[in-house]
């Protein structure tokens, strides 16, 4: 059992810069939680406070039920993988991995057994006698993970562990981390700025911006139910299309979304949710994911500017009366002419339209004030 509970965590640096505002997070035992956000959003600082490498300005941190605010890093029983790997350059791979166990005064045969066992899992047995400088980036990465694994820590912290690798190796290591996770069976906190890593690795994702938590949810939740414009724009590739200056219209008890020349009658669940909130007609920003657009028919029109053929799908960059629209269209059964310069009609399903309040940037359907207040004050500035 090693759950991590973070209550009102705050970090103010000398000089008054606040890096983290009031983070609240309950991480269950053996959960894989990913902190994601653009650089400077406070995700690494949060992780380092959990590790004990940064002092906690305010709030409480419980690891395994124990208040750890003033506990030294060495006594927290956590392991950490650093972005730079931080392998001890003067030690061999073996000694790097055995270091923590030696400090704990574990008997030598036991250390040897453990190190070799982990090396076997990570496929680095043949490098045990080498110094880190003789290893490639991917191998160093494995050693760094191995060094953390031999310890059987309560919590496994990873600070952008893949960002120094090239794209191919990164994909490979990401798959390995997913595999490893089932073997290690402990609580993970993983920091990244890469939304693909976040989506593929996390049980739950914590999306941060400017020191505030914007949303906490499963990958499916943050993708389908983004609480505000920032989350909607951050998660998903290519980025969600936003149509500014649209309207939510309440007409005779029925809600419509007016996007440029097209009027969409919203889906039943949207109707219900909006009604429940007592939502009136208002200015909105409408969001439609590129994958949710279909071409060939509809009331919206756009001129194709760039056509990127990806094989099974084609990415279209189009100009719809001044709005830049990105569409991802499967090439199977594609009958419409989507060559550069062509004009196409396009549409989407009303239930896939995300409705954001123009003033606050919050999602009219999914933004839940109660849970948002619980995790952090609303991030008012939604420009990204």
């Amino acid at each position: 059992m090693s759950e991590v509970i973070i209550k009102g965590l705050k970090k103010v640096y000398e000089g008054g810069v606040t890096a983290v505002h009031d983070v609240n997070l309950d991480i269950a035992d053996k959960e894989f939680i990913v902190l994601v956000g653009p650089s400077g959003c406070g995700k690494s600082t949060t992780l380092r406070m959990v590790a004990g490498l940064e002092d906690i300005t305010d709030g409480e941190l419980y690891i395994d039920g124990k208040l750890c605010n003033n506990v030294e890093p060495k006594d927290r029983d956590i392991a950490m993988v650093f972005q730079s790997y931080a392998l001890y350059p003067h030690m061999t791979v073996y000694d790097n991995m055995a270091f923590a166990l030696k400090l704990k005064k574990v008997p030598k045969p036991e250390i040897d057994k453990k190190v070799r066992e982990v090396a076997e899992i990570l496929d680095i047995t043949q490098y045990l006698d080498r110094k880190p400088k003789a290893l490639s980036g991917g191998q160093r990465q494995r050693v760094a993970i191995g060094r953390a694994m031999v310890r059987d820590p309560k919590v496994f912290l990873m600070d952008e562990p893949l960002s120094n690798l090239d794209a191919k190796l990164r994909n490979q290591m990401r798959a390995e981390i997913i595999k490893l996770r089932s073997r290690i069976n402990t609580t993970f906190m993983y920091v990244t700025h890469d939304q693909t890593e976040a989506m593929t690795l996390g049980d739950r994702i914590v999306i941060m911006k400017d020191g505030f938590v914007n949303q906490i949810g499963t990958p499916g939740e943050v993708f389908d139910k983004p609480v505000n414009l920032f989350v909607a724009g951050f998660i998903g590739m290519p980025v969600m299309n936003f149509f500014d200056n649209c309207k939510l219209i309440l007409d005779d008890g029925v809600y419509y979304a007016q996007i440029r020349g097209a009027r969409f009658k919203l889906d039943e669940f949207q109707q219900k949710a909006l009604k429940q909130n007592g939502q009136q007609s208002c200015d909105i920003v409408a969001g439609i994911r590129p994958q949710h657009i279909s071409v060939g028919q509809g009331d919206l029109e756009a001129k194709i500017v760039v056509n990127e053929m990806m094989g099974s799908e084609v990415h279209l960059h189009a100009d719809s009366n001044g709005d830049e629209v990105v569409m991802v269209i499967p090439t199977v059964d594609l009958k419409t002419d989507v060559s550069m310069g062509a004009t196409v009609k396009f549409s989407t399903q009303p239930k896939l339209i995300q409705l954001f309040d123009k003033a606050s940037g919050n999602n009219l359907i999914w933004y839940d004030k109660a849970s948002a207040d619980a995790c952090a004050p609303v991030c008012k500035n939604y420009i990204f």
Partner: protein
Amino acid sequence: MSGSGQSHALKRRETVTAYLFMLPALCFFAAFVVLPMIMGIVTSLFNYTMKNPVSKETFIGLQNYVDLFHDATFKRSMLNTLILVVVTVPSVTMFSLWVSSVIYKMRPGWCSFFRCVFYLPVVTGTVAVVVVWRWMFDGYSGILNYLLKAVGIIDKNIRFLGDTRFAIWCIITIMFTTYVGQPIVLYVAALGNVDQSLVEAAQVDGANKMQVFWRIKWPQIMPTTLYIVVITTINTFQCFSLIQLLTSGGPSGSTNTVMYYLYQNAFSLYKYGYANSMGVILAIVIAVLSAIQFKVMSKDVSY
């Protein structure tokens, strides 16, 4: 083929240009370092004094070296030199490491202040430093005597510089104060350059402050330590002005060093050949010691 031939010619031209640029420096190096070295070795094989210039008649082979090993004053000065090295090098290294490890984490202002304080004797002229220390060590009105009497450790004045028991320790004290400046500056820089993530990794791995220092930082600053040990050793061997100004080798040879004895032979007794043989021996001892230090310590040097 023609391309490779062309690049070959280009390379040669570049090499020639490079040597041309180095030529002025190389000339000085040859004239004032290489040539004197060779001449030193050569003249050490002659009975070369002011009266007898180097000639066929004065060639005596290794006789100067044989004489050296029977010269009690030389042996005494070699012993004094070794005492200076054995005491000064470790104490300078350890003290500067200790001071640096305390000050390198301070606010930049305080760190600079302490570096300044310890570096001041390095930039102050040796003569000025020695004059001040002489006043302090003075047997009649020196502040050291005054303080020791005030505290009650001694009841009558000690002539520090005139007593065979104390003179060498006075030399060591002054050496110590003038030698720690540079290592402190170097160590502060080296400690500041240790990758902070290694320290953090060790902390997370369960290391306490001492373990972090000795098992992570110490190996990382090993190149600096090696440099400091070698440089301090060489400086101590070659120390001359301090002794000339403070004791002139006395009392009764108790502060005589190889370097000072060499100077006496060359420029007071004009026994150039004999002095040169001493220089050769000193050079060999320094080279051997430095080689040993490199061999032993570079095992732990990591890059």
